[in-house]
């Protein structure tokens, strides 16, 4: 069975996504920094299923390593899922350029670097799927997290363009826009329950949307509505709000 490459495999969302793909018979490449720390998780999947799991040392901001790592895969993946994300408190990112840069690089530059390589391969082979996990935060800049949000906005725009380009080659591109997700990243925040998804539900949503060849996924789906409203507030009002 085919391989799926998951980038940023240490996050809760990535792990749950890996479990869903494994459950459905896909072998896995799990790419992350200090990938060794995923040994236990590799075992978890191998006990749960009979798929093959390989850990890949992968740093999304080490752009010049990406081509080599991709070329080194003994079997090219059928799908690539980029889950990498980096978010610090907006106030910190505002003050600290290194934090801003890291936010942009992990959420955008690095994703572009690896997906350019993947896209060229998939386009040539005329097959495959790409999933990029962006965020609802990219739908409109808000003072609460516009540095993270703008990096995600760029990533969403990139994925849109990629989808447009690869359409002719039969390669599907799915943009995932999660709202609040109950993960390590959001631990300690008091998130509204009705708007907050569990990572395992997000994972299932991603799998189903990808299998159906959908374009954009809001998860939970209520976020489609929430963001539709937020996007349509006129700027002269929006600039005065604190949301």
């Amino acid at each position: 069975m085919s391989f799926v490459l998951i980038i940023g495999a240490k996050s809760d969302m990535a792990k749950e996504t890996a479990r869903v793909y494994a459950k459905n018979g896909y072998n896995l490449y799990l790419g992350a920094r200090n990938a060794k720390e995923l040994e236990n998780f590799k075992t978890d999947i191998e006990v749960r299923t009979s798929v093959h799991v390989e850990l890949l040392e992968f740093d999304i901001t080490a752009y010049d390593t990406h081509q080599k790592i991709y070329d080194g895969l003994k079997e090219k993946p059928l799908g690539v899922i980029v889950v990498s994300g980096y978010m610090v408190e907006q106030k910190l990112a505002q003050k600290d350029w290194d934090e801003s840069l890291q936010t942009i690089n992990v959420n955008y530059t690095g994703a572009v670097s690896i997906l350019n390589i993947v896209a060229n391969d998939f386009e040539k082979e005329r097959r495959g799927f790409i999933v990029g996990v962006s965020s609802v935060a990219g739908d409109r800049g808000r003072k609460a997290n516009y540095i993270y949000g703008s990096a995600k906005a760029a990533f969403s725009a990139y994925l849109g363009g990629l989808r447009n380009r690869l359409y002719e080659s039969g390669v599907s591109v799915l943009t995932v826009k999660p709202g609040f997700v109950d993960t390590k990243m959001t631990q300690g925040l008091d998130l509204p329950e009705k708007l907050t998804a569990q990572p395992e539900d997000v994972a299932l949503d991603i799998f189903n949307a990808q299998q159906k060849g959908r374009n954009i996924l809001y998860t939970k789906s209520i976020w489609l509505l929430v963001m539709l409203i937020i996007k349509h507030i006129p700027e002269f009002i929006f600039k005065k709000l604190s949301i």
Partner: protein
Amino acid sequence: MNLVSWGMYPIVKNHQTTLRDEEELKEYMQNTSEFIPFGNGRSYGDSALNDEILYTKKYNNFISFDEDKGLLTCRAGVLLSEILDSFVPRGWFLKVTPGTKLITIGGAIASDIHGKNHHIEGCFSECIKEFKIMQADGEIKTVKKATNLFYATCGGMGLTGVILEATISLKKINSQFINQTTIKTKNLQETFDAFEEHKDLPYSVAWIDCLAKDENIGKCLLMVGDFADDGDLDYKSKSKLNIPFNLPSFALNNLSVKAFNWLYYAKAPDGVSTQKVGIDTFFYPLDSIKNWNRIYGKNGFTQYQFILPKETSYEGLYEILTKISDSGKGSFLAVLKLYGKSNKNYLSFPIEGYSLALDFKIEDGLFELLDELDKVVVKHNGRIYLTKDVRVSKETFEAGYPMIEKFREFRKKNNMSEKFNSLQSKRLNI
């Protein structure tokens, strides 16, 4: 954050910490004066609730499986449903499973849960080879059978430490189907006779019509069965219906309960009939409706489950069923089961005899009725199941569990009494 267990009563405002790794837990243990582990909240009452809870469900890695011995090692947050998803297709099933697969391994151990096969296989602790637990001082112990820590922890309601991992043995199966026989009875005596007649079959459970009166009291549908042997293991768990909000409480008035019980009862052919049904239908009928607990409305509900020794079962059950029928308070569910011998765990619920479990919507007058029922239970040397309870008195509880003093002493001696507490353990001074 507001938190409830399955009965949605009480609602507790509390702080939650997620269990992610041992090091973090050690630190948490040192810095937290009192807390209780919370698995998947399928206990009905307040045994997993407190101001501070440790949320264990995300601690859910599988660790190893020994194909030759059928031994699975996994972390305590793994749900039974995850085990089924992975292992039924490979020909393995749980030796002991409750009526829902949506519970964690930690919860299964802490309540020492039992299933429809208690009279043959006993409680969950029977299938445990060993488990790991972190104690109040942060030390991790590997606990084997026939030790005090084993006896205290299995059935110990999370009051002896945080269970981290367990090795359990699975049972070999050769089908995803169960050959089920349904027996329709007309009264309690017939029900008892039917249980005895079929007690060699591994699985048995009866649905009782609680609103039946007089000579019909105790009429039931008894379902017994065993796994088929057809080699079909192509198991996929069923997708779920959702009850998206709390139903208004009139949804469950006496009439609708009557209609429900009647439908269930009437659907079954008279006398004895046989069916071939899937694992989910046979073991987990309620799981197919996600959030079915919302059917009782926003005030929540409770499950009253007691067990009586065999000698007093008939008399006691008859008395209790009569009281319930007279009260007119309907139970959506009344489940009767035959149990085998008790084990040595200090607080495990099962004793040899019959147990009845009924759901009641929380409403005025209910707790008075249940206090009345308690008296009958105590009179007949029975006991109440802690994992379902939210209101029993200390006296009734103590009367039913003669090993409680031993448990309390054990907790004291090992510095557990301060650190691990639920609302229930404080209520009952466990």
